[in-house]
């Protein structure tokens, strides 16, 4: 008997696009409440810290540094909440309930599923980060001039954090562990992200340097200066990009393993 003709594989980019589009549509159905929570959390933190940080002509250099750190940290926190925490929970749930079987029995590259989903979660963060950054600039009287840099910060920090989130969700042996890792990652981004590093003890600063979200925060914070150090901004964004590539590659491997597990 001659073997049956194999149907074609679906190519990387079209299937990535199909996954992205399908995931994006979920925002309408399921994600809206949590996207609001992500934004309100960041707005709340800024309003609270506004009470202890002086702004404008009355503020010291230390206050100005703090204001930049608070606004940049709160903005990137939206990305950490959605791309890291929610994505880790989503993949954890998909893995635990057997939902990965649907993708695993389709001739689709693992990278399409992981990258398409990660890209969608990074996109979910766009309205929240924009709103947080704009409100933050108004609250703390920071310059809006360079906010265009968010067009780089959101995708690159989004890639890094979504990669970590996806890897956590797919590697966790149980759904609860995926949830725990996602929450811990977001807490770390909150605790280490929204305060200026010069206020922190040295070991905490080291810990802060290990967190991928830090480089997104730093890149954004630098652009609030009148004359930003663009080389440093580019270096921070390059770290995000490298972490993004590595963590998404890890997540893709984790997906392959998880899809064909027992």
């Amino acid at each position, binding site marked *: 008997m001659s073997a049956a003709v*194999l149907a074609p594989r679906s190519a990387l980019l079209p299937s990535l696009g199909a996954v992205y589009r399908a995931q994006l*549509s979920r925002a309408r159905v399921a994600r809206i409440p949590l996207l609001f929570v992500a934004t309100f959390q960041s707005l709340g933190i800024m309003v609270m810290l506004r009470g202890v940080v002086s702004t404008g002509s009355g503020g010291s250099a230390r206050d100005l540094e703090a204001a930049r750190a608070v606004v940049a940290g709160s903005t990137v926190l939206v990305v950490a909440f959605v791309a890291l925490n929610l994505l880790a929970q989503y993949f954890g749930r998909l893995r635990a309930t057997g*939902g990965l079987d649907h993708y695993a*029995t389709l001739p689709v590259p693992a990278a399409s599923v992981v990258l398409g989903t990660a890209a969608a979660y990074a996109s979910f963060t766009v309205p929240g980060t924009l709103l947080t950054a704009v409100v933050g600039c108004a609250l703390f009287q920071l310059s809006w001039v360079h906010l265009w840099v968010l067009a780089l910060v959101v995708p690159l920090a989004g890639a890094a954090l979504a990669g970590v989130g996806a890897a956590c969700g797919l590697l966790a042996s149980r759904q609860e562990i995926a949830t725990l890792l996602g929450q811990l990652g977001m807490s770390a981004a909150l605790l280490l992200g929204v305060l200026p590093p010069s206020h922190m003890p040295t070991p905490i600063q080291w810990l802060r340097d290990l967190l991928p979200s830090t480089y997104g925060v730093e890149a954004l914070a630098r652009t609030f200066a009148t004359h930003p150090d663009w080389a440093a901004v580019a270096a921070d964004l390059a770290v995000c990009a490298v972490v993004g590539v590595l963590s998404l590659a890890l997540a893709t491997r984790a997906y392959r393993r998880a899809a064909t597990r027992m």
Partner: protein
Amino acid sequence: MFGLLGPNGAGKSTLVRQLTGLLRPDSGRIDILGHDIVRRPERASRLLAYLGQESTALDELTVSLAVETTARLRGLSAAAARAARDAVLAELALEPLAGRPLAKLSGGQRRLACFATALVGERPLLVLDEPTTGMDPVARRAVWAAVDRRRAEQGVTVLLVTHNVIEAETVLDRVAVVDEGRVIACDTPGGLKALVDGDVRLDLVWREEAPLGLPLIAALGARAVRNGRRWTVRATPDEARDLVAEVTSGPAFAALDDFSLTTPSLEDVYLLLGGRHEGLAR
């Protein structure tokens, strides 16, 4: 149309996970349409469409987008995926639900939407794990009509996993009876039923307690399979006729709620072959 029949936990889904390339068997061979799936598990997705029991990957999508996305991921172009989506939604009468998310549908409707995703992007083999769970008769008919059409027009092979005896008898050409990870029989439904030919089954349902004080009922109780107020006895037709006459004419009749005499089903085959569970649905 080939069926795997067995109660929950018999190993049907494990076997299916191996056939679909999701689980590598410890030993043995799997050959699908000339392809070695143990060595090349990634080929399974290019040979077969699988309808599993879970829909979490699709729950938050609309029916329309779930079907279209699945078609895209099965390698169809954007235009072909939209055409396939429209055709299958029309075929299964899912158009009124097209814009609603799967999670908001009833269990049977959601199952039908998942079945639709298995049909787009034609495959020579359909592996359907309990496809009609929770469906009303109209949806069931739509499922079997769609399957029959593909068998007649494209020569599609179907592997159906079920624990529903009536469904197995009605739609399957051949059936393997599975129990505790082993195939305990494999034949046509008619061929299997011939194994228990001659015997019929007598079901007695008591109003409350069975009148065990009566010698006839006490003797019957010793050989009956009891399931609450329902007793099931296997007997030759002659003996069954006598039993019915005795039960319905004597004092036992006052305690009887209902009774029925039926010819053997695949459930009887399963029990005769040594199946140790009573998890089959009728």
